[in-house]
């Protein structure tokens, strides 16, 4: 019974995505009549010897752009309404509690990756935070560690790879999760292998509980993110987001 429900959920989630990937419009512009060179044609305006900040290695751009549009639609029609419902139902302190709880769990990932990057200070900070917040913070529902002057240090396996010289590789837009890279996507998988929160919490894998857990993680993460698709007033939003994501990750690794 559980199993069928799971596969049904998975099918509902995946079907539109697959459809989107195989069907529909092309990424290629459509020629409608004779093409007339624009006033400012690229080959006249752009020079070969100039580097462009917006250039990010994106060989899978066609697929990425489809997923980007899918994500925007999913965000508008599913994600944001659910987040709004969640925020309406949950008292603010409970929302904060949930957020703190997940954040405290992610401390283990921070510590593991701090160790892997030989960042002693960060590893100690994370360990100290986890101990304080798990005890005085009532299993992580509160965050006294930050109040005591020790902010969270975000570290993940993508950053660990970057720290040891792995380049980001192709840009990837992940379904629902959004901007990533081959390196950072690998990092996501590795982090899960290194520390499985579901197992740690004693939840049944491939069960209702697991889905509920991930759904709540996703809702919490979205409610913490101010970004809204297609509101920046730029026809170049995809390119802008790609550039900013790449820059932000370089900064994270450097940190």
């Amino acid at each position: 019974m559980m199993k069928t429900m799971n596969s049904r959920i998975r099918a509902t989630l995946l079907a539109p995505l697959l459809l989107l990937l195989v069907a529909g419009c092309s990424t290629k512009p459509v020629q409608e009549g004779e093409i007339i060179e624009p006033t400012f044609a690229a080959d006249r305006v752009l020079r070969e010897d100039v580097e462009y900040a917006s250039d990010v290695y994106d060989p899978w751009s066609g697929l990425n752009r489809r997923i980007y549009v899918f994500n925007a639609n999913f965000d508008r029609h599913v994600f944001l309404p659910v987040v709004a419902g969640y925020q309406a139902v949950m008292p603010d302190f409970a929302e904060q509690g949930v957020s703190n709880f997940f954040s405290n769990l992610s401390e283990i990932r921070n510590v593991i990756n701090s160790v892997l990057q030989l960042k002693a200070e960060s590893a100690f900070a994370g360990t100290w935070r986890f101990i304080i917040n798990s005890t005085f913070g009532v299993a992580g529902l509160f965050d006294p560690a930050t109040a005591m002057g020790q902010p969270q240090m975000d570290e993940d396996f993508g950053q660990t790879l970057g720290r040891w010289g792995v380049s980001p590789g192709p840009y990837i837009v992940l379904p629902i999760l959004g901007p990533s890279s081959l390196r950072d996507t690998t990092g996501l998988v590795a982090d899960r292998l290194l520390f499985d929160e579901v197992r740690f919490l004693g939840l049944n894998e491939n069960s209702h509980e697991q889905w509920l857990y991930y759904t709540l993680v996703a809702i919490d993460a979205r409610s913490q993110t101010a970004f809204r698709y297609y509101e920046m007033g730029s026809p170049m939003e995809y390119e802008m987001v790609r550039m900013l994501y790449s820059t932000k990750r370089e900064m994270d690794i450097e940190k």
Partner: protein
Amino acid sequence: MRTILFSISLFLATGVAGATSESYGYPHQDPYVATVVGTPPEFRAVLPEKIPLKKARLTVFEGREVPESLWYEEGLRYSYALQKQAAPLVFLIAGTGGSHDGGKNQIMAKAFYQAGFHVVGLSSPTFANFIVSASETGVPGHAYRDAADLYRVMTLVRDELQSRIQVTGHFVAGYSLGGFNAAFVALLDEQRKAFNFEKVLMINPPVRLYSSVSLLDRMLENIPGGVDNFNQYYKSLVERLTQVYKRGDRLALSEDGFYKAYQELQFKNEELAALIGVSFRLTSADLALTADIMNDAGYIKPKNLRLTKYSSMQPYDKVAMRLGFTDYVHAFFYPHYKAKDPSLTRAGLIEEMSLADIEEYLRSATKIEVMHNEDDFILEPGEMEFFRRVFGERAKIYPYGGHCGNMEYRDNVAHMLSAMRQ
């Protein structure tokens, strides 16, 4: 009742009653610092952290075809916050490339809502969503046509909200280009009389559009080595930001952390000017590319080439970033309007896009108020005189604040509200 609300909010906004302009206490005396950094928290007016601002979408032109690659811009987005009781309504017009709920529109929205107004936030006619959904021509930057587009939108928004509120009078306020737009909207209202605006407030408006966009275009020359070196400049900025980020951790990338980051980065003047130039260039690029796609004008994108929902914007995005607003004026804007009216001259069109074109009206229209800063760099030397000469007492000119940098300062917010008193 309104007067009471007004006095209370004035008091709240100023914190100190009766602050005089002789002791103007806005802290940044450098116009570039003021513009980039704004008002430090301890100098801001006391405004509500949140107001019940709702977002909505409106169909302006039934059956308008939106280009596939701009599919998400269908329907004009705007925002509003309504009072429960009868109240005056103020339309807020954003500046160049600004959205209805952008930072500066939100400052105004909070101030006026707190003072008892219904508020309606409108995007600038130069904002992509407005160009696609509410601009009749799709070629923005035209003083009179943009005003007509705004007026149409205002009328539709009023119809939309009419059943839910009681309005005791209509007002308009706008900053930067939005302030400029407000003057032309006021003039249009004298003919059409749909609102009979009681007061109109222009905050840091340009006088002559072409002068201001030329000045802003040129600010990009402050990038060391010019625009060709943009990438190196970007990288060096990121590097320095990273140093702050390392120390301050998450803080540096949050909005509150921005001021702290600025303090630590110790920007030089020309670096700040370059930042302003980059920001204006991004705005110009978005505007020109959107208008180009909308009209299939063959400006940056080849004519007769239709971009799909999933098409790459390369290399058009790069080309757009290399072109200034003045390029748009000469190679797109002017030819577009020239084609409609062969008698039009380039110089004639440029001079029409100026407050000087409606000087007589502005002189006589006592309902219009101006707030400006002596050191605003979007004005050419001598242009400030225009405001003094034409508006006299109705022009409040602060000694500094750069371009809209002091909008959130307590004296400015207080003046914003008192200027709109009926």
